[in-house]
């Protein structure tokens, strides 16, 4: 909402400066978005007389001017404008002036050997127009020495405020002035509206043609005819006001409606009575009807929209925009003036459906003052008669005004309860009454009736806000919030929250870079990763490739890895810890952690190096990441099963599913399937893992923080090596477990220290070499005892895996 200071002063008697007014507006909740104060910005620019302009001795295009600035001796100015001439009046700025059009501060200078003590200015240099052609050429009677801005009528600052949706009353100058007066910045002086008596009955009748349940679409409709008007350009003061706030003057009848909209937040409509046939009917539009509106566009209507029609058809879109056919122009002599009430919701929906924004819609969808429906018509009619002549009819009024809002039972103590601020009752009462609220009763509880223009004020908290914004929020003292209990705060993070944070730190410490990718991905990508169900597809995606909730973090990471590769960074290790979606239910949202490595982005580093080049990533890099993650999060991995083969995104032979039993699948790792790479238009090598943090077993709660007692053996551990020949398909990890299980008391560790296939080993077989560490606890082992454990291991391997000791 834009307005000028002088317009505001029609409603507010005040001596306050623009700055004070702006500051107060923001303070009471009408946030100032900008103040355009040309008078202030252009204060150093004054009117000057060019006593003499003669050719510059050293430059063809320059002139040396002696200028009378109205302040003492004439000033010498070098000027490059083609129109600079002796005897003209123009605009002068002394050295030190900031020139807005050039974004520079003027200095004293010597131009081609001639001293220049200021500048004669063009309109462009003052940022008043695009006109660079020459300096401003003023009439002979322009007063030398006076500020140019005031002379040019630029002295009226324009203030723009942001009005929140609950403050429809502040979409008019009268409402803005009321707030300022309540905030003690002046006296409200909005003129009262005198009831207007018509000279004759209105020849056009109005019918509200609605089903009973639709009556709220148009609660009331007032109409008057003014006959014998002369329409044409508005008087200069009205045009200037409209122009100052960005509106284009059209003709006086239309300008009056715009004036009323801004002055009183009362949108009106004027019909050229000669173009209206028969009576007016307010009704829902019929499917198939259309209207050529005043913006020159034709709108197809449905029965969702409300229209004003006559025997010719639809003449106006109720509360939004009038029609071209019955619009007022220079030839209008008889005018019908409408002041109506509309259903805010219907206006908002119709405006959105038709894609029309107008000052009328903006106000009606927020709710106008119902009690001003009739006075608004009277005021507009009086203004028409004053500016266009003519004679007004009596008012036709259809429908009924809604009842006034209910009074609120209000204990004054509510202000202190909600704000902590203690205010005198008198001050609180004054704040309310100056905003138009009616306070009745006395003592600690009163009845407060909101004014008709504040329909949204419905409860005690609303009244607290009204009092507070007038009293000033800065008076609320900052008060320490006491701790609930004790002084040292208790831990607040849940296990999942700690794991989510921990996972990020842990993966980053493995050289991976955390990414945050979109929660929505393309439907194709979602489908590739087991998603794409209709329940998780957006009805209105912002882009085709951001349409489906992600079932996995990997599609986003995989696409990002390629984007990095395309920028020349192919060896990337990325991870994300974030939500994935299995259904549209809250429990269908899981917290996943996923990581990928591309190219040679291995833990120890990527690319070539003097100490040995990094080789391409493989599935074991991903396995190492996920195992480190589980270890870092303190998940006991004793029961973890690594089952060959992963989900559809993974290479079937180079991936595995991670689970704690068949029902507790926590994730997978492996090489990304070549078909998935192709479908996502991505190049490998690419390995990845993903686990669901919600699926991880919870730590057992323990009664104390004491760790189990450490038992150390005093005897040396013994290591024995075994190389077994087994079928190539035999899982070495299983062999390790079996070996461990042969004597759980004695065997402390089994590791795979060598793998071999090829010469010396039969085709289809491989050699798996295990190092078995025995840790005696009671006594040093004899060679015979060690041999016995070895024999047990060899027998177990032979039995389970058909393994033979390598010869």
């Amino acid at each position, binding site marked *: 909402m834009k307005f000028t200071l002088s317009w505001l002063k029609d409603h507010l008697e005040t001596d306050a400066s623009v700055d004070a007014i702006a500051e107060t507006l923001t303070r*009471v*909740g009408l*946030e100032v978005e900008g103040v355009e104060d040309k008078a202030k910005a252009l204060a150093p620019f004054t009117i000057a007389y060019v006593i003499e302009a003669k050719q510059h001795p050293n430059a063809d295009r320059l002139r040396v001017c002696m200028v009378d600035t109205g302040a003492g001796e004439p000033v010498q100015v070098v000027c490059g404008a083609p129109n600079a001439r002796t005897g003209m009046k123009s605009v002068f700025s002394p050295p030190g002036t900031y020139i807005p059009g050039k974004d520079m501060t003027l200095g004293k200078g010597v131009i081609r050997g001639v001293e220049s003590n200021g500048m004669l200015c063009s309109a462009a240099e003052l940022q008043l127009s695009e006109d660079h052609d020459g300096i401003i050429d003023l009439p002979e009677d322009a007063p030398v020495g006076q500020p140019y801005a005031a002379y040019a009528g630029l002295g009226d600052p324009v203030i723009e405020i942001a009005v*929140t949706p*609950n*403050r429809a009353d502040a979409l008019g100058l009268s409402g803005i002035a009321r707030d300022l007066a309540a905030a003690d910045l002046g006296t409200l002086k909005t003129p009262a509206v005198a009831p207007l008596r018509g000279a004759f009955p209105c020849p056009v009748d109005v019918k509200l043609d609605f089903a009973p349940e639709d009556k709220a679409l148009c609660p009331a409709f007032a109409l008057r005819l003014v006959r014998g008007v002369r329409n044409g350009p508005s008087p200069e003061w009205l045009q200037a006001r409209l122009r100052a706030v960005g509106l284009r003057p059209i003709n006086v009848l239309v300008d009056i409606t715009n004036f009323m909209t801004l002055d009183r937040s009362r949108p009106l409509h004027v019909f050229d009575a000669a173009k209206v046939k028969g009576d007016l009917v307010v009704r829902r539009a019929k499917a198939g009807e259309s209207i050529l509106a005043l913006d020159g566009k034709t709108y197809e209507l449905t029965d969702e929209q409300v229209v004003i029609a006559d025997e010719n058809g639809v003449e106006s879109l109720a509360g939004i925009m009038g029609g071209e056919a019955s619009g007022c122009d220079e030839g209008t002599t008889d005018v019908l003036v409408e002041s109506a009430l509309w259903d805010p*919701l219907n206006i908002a*929906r119709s405006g*959105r459906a038709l894609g029309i924004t107008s000052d009328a819609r903006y106000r009606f969808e927020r709710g106008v003052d119902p009690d001003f429906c009739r006075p608004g018509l009277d005021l507009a009619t009086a203004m028409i008669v004053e500016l266009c002549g003519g004679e007004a009819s009596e008012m036709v009024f259809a429908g009924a005004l809604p009842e006034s809002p209910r009074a609120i039972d209000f204990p004054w103590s509510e202000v202190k*309860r*909600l704000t*902590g*601020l203690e205010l005198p009752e008198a001050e609180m009462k004054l704040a309310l009454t100056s905003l138009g609220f009616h306070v009745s009763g006395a003592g600690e509880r009163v009845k407060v009736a909101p004014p008709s223009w504040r329909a949204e004020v419905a409860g*005690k*908290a609303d009244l607290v*806000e009204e009092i507070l914004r007038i009293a000033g*929020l800065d008076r*609320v003292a900052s008060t*320490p*919030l006491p*701790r*609930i209990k004790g002084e040292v*705060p208790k831990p*607040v*993070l849940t296990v999942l*929250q700690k794991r989510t*944070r921990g996972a*990020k730190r842990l993966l980053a410490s*493995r*050289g*991976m*870079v*955390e*990414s*945050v*990718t979109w*929660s929505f991905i393309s439907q194709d990508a979602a489908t590739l990763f087991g998603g794409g169900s209709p329940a*998780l*597809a957006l*009805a*209105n995606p*912002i882009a085709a490739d951001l349409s489906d*909730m992600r079932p996995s973090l990997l599609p986003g*990471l995989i696409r*990002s890895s390629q*984007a*990095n590769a395309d*920028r020349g*960074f192919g060896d990337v*290790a*990325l991870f994300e810890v974030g*939500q994935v979606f299995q259904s*549209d*239910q*809250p429990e269908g*949202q899981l917290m996943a952690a996923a990581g990928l490595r591309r190219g040679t982005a291995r833990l*120890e*580093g990527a690319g070539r*190096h003097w*100490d040995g080049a990094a080789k391409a990533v493989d599935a074991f890099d991903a396995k190492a990441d996920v195992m480190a993650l589980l270890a870092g999060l303190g998940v006991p991995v004793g029961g973890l099963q690594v089952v060959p083969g992963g989900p559809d995104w993974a290479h079937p032979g180079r991936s595995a599913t991670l689970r704690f039993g068949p029902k507790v699948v926590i994730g997978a790792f492996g090489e990304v399937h070549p078909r998935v790479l192709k479908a996502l238009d991505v190049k490998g090598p690419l390995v990845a893992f993903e686990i669901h943090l919600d699926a991880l077993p919870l730590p057992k709660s323990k009664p104390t923080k004491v760790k189990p007692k450490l038992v150390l053996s005093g005897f040396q551990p013994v290591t024995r090596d075994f190389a077994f020949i087994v079928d190539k398909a035999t899982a070495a990890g299983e062999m390790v477990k079996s070996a461990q299980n042969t004597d759980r008391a004695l065997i402390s560790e089994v590791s795979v220290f060598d793998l071999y296939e090829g010469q010396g080993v039969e085709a289809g077989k491989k050699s798996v070499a295990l190092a078995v560490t025995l840790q005696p606890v009671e006594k040093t082992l004899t060679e015979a005892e060690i041999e016995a454990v070895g024999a047990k291991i060899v027998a177990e391997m032979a039995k389970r895996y058909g393994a033979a000791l390598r010869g």
Partner: protein
Amino acid sequence: MNEIDHLGTSLLADVAGAQDEAALEQVRIAALGKAGSISALLKTLGAMTPDERKEKGPLINGLRDRVQTALTARREALAEAALEAKLASETLDVSLPVREGPEARGRIHPISQVIDEITAIFGDMGFSIAEGPDVETDDLNFTKLNFPVGHPAREMHDTFFFAPDASGERKLLRTHTSPVQVRTMLAQEPPIRVICPGRTYRMDSDQTHTPMFHQVEGLVIDRQAHLGHLKWVLEEFCKAFFEIDNVKMRFRPSFFPFTEPSMEVDIQCSRKGGEIRFGEGDDWLEILGCGMVHPNVLKNCGVDPEVYQGFAWGMGIDRIAMLKYGMPDLRPFFEADVRWLSHYGFRPLDLPTLTGGLSSS
């Protein structure tokens, strides 16, 4: 005794003259070996009379000890010299670059870092972290929060919706984390102190808006919490978060459906050369919205507004991250460009704490 002295002089000269371990060993064998010269002298002791032995014994044993000591010293000197020679030949080009370790390469995204910072501050004030689903119901995202029917936020051009399910219910992507406040109030009796960080979604896309962004909201419900407390919490937060000693904030009356009174908060700053600094200057920057929880919201969440009261606030995590750390544009937050992440991201062990400071230099 000339013979013994002579032998001693000769042997000590041999020890001193030995140039390596092997030569020294030869000298030892020649002196102390089975057939060595000193061994031979020692053997003569057996055949001597007690008086002779009393006289010569100490002399011969003394000779043996002197030679022994000289041998040991010489051996150590030779070993030392050998080590020096070896060390002199063992050199590395220590200027060769080593591989950068994973801890140096890894990065934490600024959003995660800022959430950890926020958590550290509010955790200290006794706030828990509440979370909720991104896919929400209209009821929890709008209705319970006192959004009127027909509010523009409920339209397709502002909010992401899913197709209606079999029961006709149309789910949506939460437009703020406020439904988490609702879920908290429905699940928990006051007193309540939670913050709700999370992903939120709106139909928006430009330099400072993305269709997905992050918000943190806070909620305090008890029998006394009032605007003065709200002011204090936000002032303390801003000082701690932006790591400045003083912050000047401006509370402006505003409007949100779910709070009454409602306010927007500006923070005083200076803008010089595109850089925003807090705690100085005379510009204002809007930073968050807040207010006393609307009685209708309390009622909708089963909390009696005559007994309980409280306040709530909300702000953009991405936005305050940009303000604190100076990223000019929001969009790269979600583009996973390793150049951006390496530059604006945080090291793995940059753990924000109140004791150690939120951000490390």
